[in-house]
């Protein structure tokens, strides 16, 4: 483990930015954190987390896949790929780091999504441990320890110092470059912090939330639960939850005719949308209830079924904060999962 | 139309805001004019002379000062041409010509008699007192 003083952090960023594009959470003019590229003078946000998740770095909201051009009756294919730049994302919380695992299992499974995998290969993740979890946090429900974030490098920030520990070769190589700006140290301060935060975690309103009722093999039990009706009653069918969710990975591929050619691009899609996966025969899920159920069943049952029991929610709490009608996965888990969850 | 007349015409049109081309030569202005018999050129001729740029002749005519400014022609004109405003403007041109007034304010009292309408006296002083 290495450390540097808080004052030196900017020099560290500068050093990283020498070799990579460096992104980190920065406050915008409304005080909301969002990932922005670091440059001299750009300050790391104090916010617990960003409004949007960092999945954009690997799975951007829209991404051109290819282009083609028709001249006369011939079609010429144009390579539009641009995902080969090395970059570093700093300040990723434990929950969001975990989300990359969940996305990996989708995109890196055969057939590998080369756009995603290229970006993964070129990206280095520097995670940061949480110190002030919010009432909406429930990462522990999915076995995530916010004080032990994964990633290529894990970082702990105390009042005066920043502690660095590499977890992967990529991480180690980067830390190597920061040799001059950091010094070797023990983990005492970090352990102190972990203890304190763990104590807070126990006091969180959602501390008792478990996913025991969910997981692989629960489809039959939960699919026809009567509660879906009332839960989905108020859902507006917007895509807020989906688009801020770090693990939602659905997309649509569309062709855009520019007049000069065609750009084939993909963009995020939401299972909450009435047009989602519309086929010539229509949509498979006709009502908002079905679409609503799909989203939560996927996160809590279908995905674990296909991925060794791993839930496709990381408890980041974004949807709790942002749903226009305040319906969210926690309410679903508590209602469908029965009283003992409360 | 010579240059001076052209210039005067433009000035008159600008000052009066009248468009003499709207005139359809019905003669109602002249028909209604109480000072008709005093005039060498009558209201409808005023309009057509301004329209044709025949300004110098107008300026030199006593008719200019026979108009009582009663505005009957303005009221009656079916085309809203407003001949009295033209008369007014031509008078102003005369006034603005330094020393070109055909008389001064001092000349007015002499000319007064009982038949002259009050309006004409007021009008005369307005013109010649400055």
């Amino acid at each position, binding site marked *: 483990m290495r450390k540097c003083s808080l004052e030196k952090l900017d020099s560290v960023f500068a050093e990283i930015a020498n070799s990579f594009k460096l992104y980190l959470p920065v406050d915008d003019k409304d005080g909301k954190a969002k990932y922005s590229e670091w440059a001299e003078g750009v300050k790391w946000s104090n916010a617990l987390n960003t409004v949007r998740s960092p999945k954009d770095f690997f799975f951007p909201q829209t991404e051109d896949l290819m282009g083609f051009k028709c001249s006369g009756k011939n079609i010429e294919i144009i390579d539009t790929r641009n995902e080969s730049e090395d970059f570093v994302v700093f300040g990723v919380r434990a929950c969001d780091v975990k989300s990359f695992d969940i996305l990996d299992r989708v995109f890196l499974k055969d057939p590998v999504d080369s756009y995603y995998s290229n970006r993964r290969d070129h990206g280095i993740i520097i995670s940061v441990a949480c110190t002030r979890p919010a009432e909406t946090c429930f990462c522990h429900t999915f076995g995530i320890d916010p004080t032990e974030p994964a990633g290529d490098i894990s970082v702990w920030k105390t009042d005066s110092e920043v502690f660095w520990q590499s977890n992967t070769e990529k991480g180690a190589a980067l830390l190597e470059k920061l040799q001059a700006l950091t010094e070797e140290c023990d983990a005492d301060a970090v352990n102190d912090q972990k203890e304190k935060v763990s104590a807070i975690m126990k006091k969180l309103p959602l501390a008792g939330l478990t996913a025991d009722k969910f997981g692989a093999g629960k489809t039959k039990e939960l699919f026809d639960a009567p509660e879906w009706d009332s839960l989905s009653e*108020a859902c507006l069918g*917007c895509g*807020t939850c989906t688009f801020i969710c770090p693990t939602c990975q659905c997309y649509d591929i*569309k062709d855009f005719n520019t007049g000069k050619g065609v750009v084939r691009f993909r963009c995020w899609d939401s299972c909450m949308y009435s047009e989602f996966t519309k086929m010539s025969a229509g949509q498979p899920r006709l009502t908002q209830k079905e679409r609503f159920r799909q989203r939560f069943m996927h996160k809590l049952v279908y995905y674990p079924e296909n991925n060794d029991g791993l839930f496709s929610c990381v408890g980041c709490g974004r949807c709790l904060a942002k749903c226009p009608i*305040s319906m969210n996965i926690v309410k679903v888990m508590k209602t469908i999962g029965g009283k003992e969850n409360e | 139309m010579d240059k001076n007349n052209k210039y005067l015409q433009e000035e008159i049109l600008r000052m009066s805001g009248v468009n003499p081309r709207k005139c359809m030569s019905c003669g109602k202005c002249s028909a209604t004019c109480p000072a008709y018999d005093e005039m060498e050129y009558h209201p409808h001729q005023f309009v057509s002379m301004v329209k044709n740029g025949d300004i110098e002749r107008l300026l030199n005519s006593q008719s200019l000062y026979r108009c009582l400014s009663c505005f009957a022609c303005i009221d009656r004109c079916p085309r809203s041409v407003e001949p009295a405003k033209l008369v007014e403007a031509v008078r102003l041109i005369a006034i603005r010509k330094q020393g070109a007034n055909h008389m001064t304010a001092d000349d007015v009292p002499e000319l007064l008699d009982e038949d002259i309408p009050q309006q004409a006296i007021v009008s005369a002083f307005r013109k010649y007192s400055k």
Partner: protein
Amino acid sequence: MQKITREQLIDKAVSLLSDGTVECVLGWEKGQFDYDITPAVFNDENELRENFVWNDFCGANFSKYLVSKTRKCNGKMLVFLKPCDTYSFNQLLTEHRFDREKVYAVGIPCEGMADIDKIKAACGDGIISIDASGDKLNVHTLYSDEPISVSAESVFAERCMNCKSKKHVAYDELLGEDGDVIESHRFDEVAEIEAMTPDERFAFWQNELSRCIRCNACRDACPACTCEKCVFDNPNSGVENKAAANSFEEKMFHIIRAFHVAGRCTDCGECSRVCPQHIPLHLLNRKFIKDINSFYGDYQAGAEVGTRAPLVDYTTDDLEPGEVFERGGDNA
């Protein structure tokens, strides 16, 4: 703190349910925390007593739900309407979007709703509970031993700070006292933007709109956006788009959305409330309202049922499109 109490509302709902006037109640359901309240349909007294809430976080405008809910409901549905909700209610009626006969509307006074983001900005994260006393909100958080007290007014949602009316323009029955239409300063911010140079305006909106993630929350929450199928969802419309592909798409979406609700928007502020990216979308709608007022005379959508919206109306001497800049004050 709201003047009318939760118990009063529940009692009213229970009595209307028991005398058979209504079949069900559209109301607010308590959430995990004190502030995450969900609109819900209540069918009996037990449900109401257990889960119905009424507090400073009941901001959601229910009017829009009436379009879909009344189609499903056989009898009458009770809906509680805050003053601003009643304007949307009327506008929807004007557009024949639901059957008035199927609704029993109870007007309830509103003292202004709180914006949880403002509270979080003032008190920090980790909010465990919020209780109201007088005009203060006491916020209990994980990170302070004592509750943090903030004045309710200081954490009002933007639309409540610029409340345009405390008057109910539609109801079957009114609980508490009716208020008045308020001289608000809601157009000040629009005027500020108008006063910028075109370059500043462009930069301002570029910054705001570029944050749009096209989640459609603004549209889906908007009581004027009740189209059976939105043009942006319709592949045949030529403007369909699922995600913000580039800065043009965002502008297209927001201009057209604002245009489609122009003259119909009651300025209820739901769009800005629900935007996860805090884009001040109400400033687009208010621009149209301000323009309509100054070009064609004051018009408040939803003030009455059956009025002709300005965009489906005209006079023969309306101002020309080229004149709008003179009328709107030339600031360029």
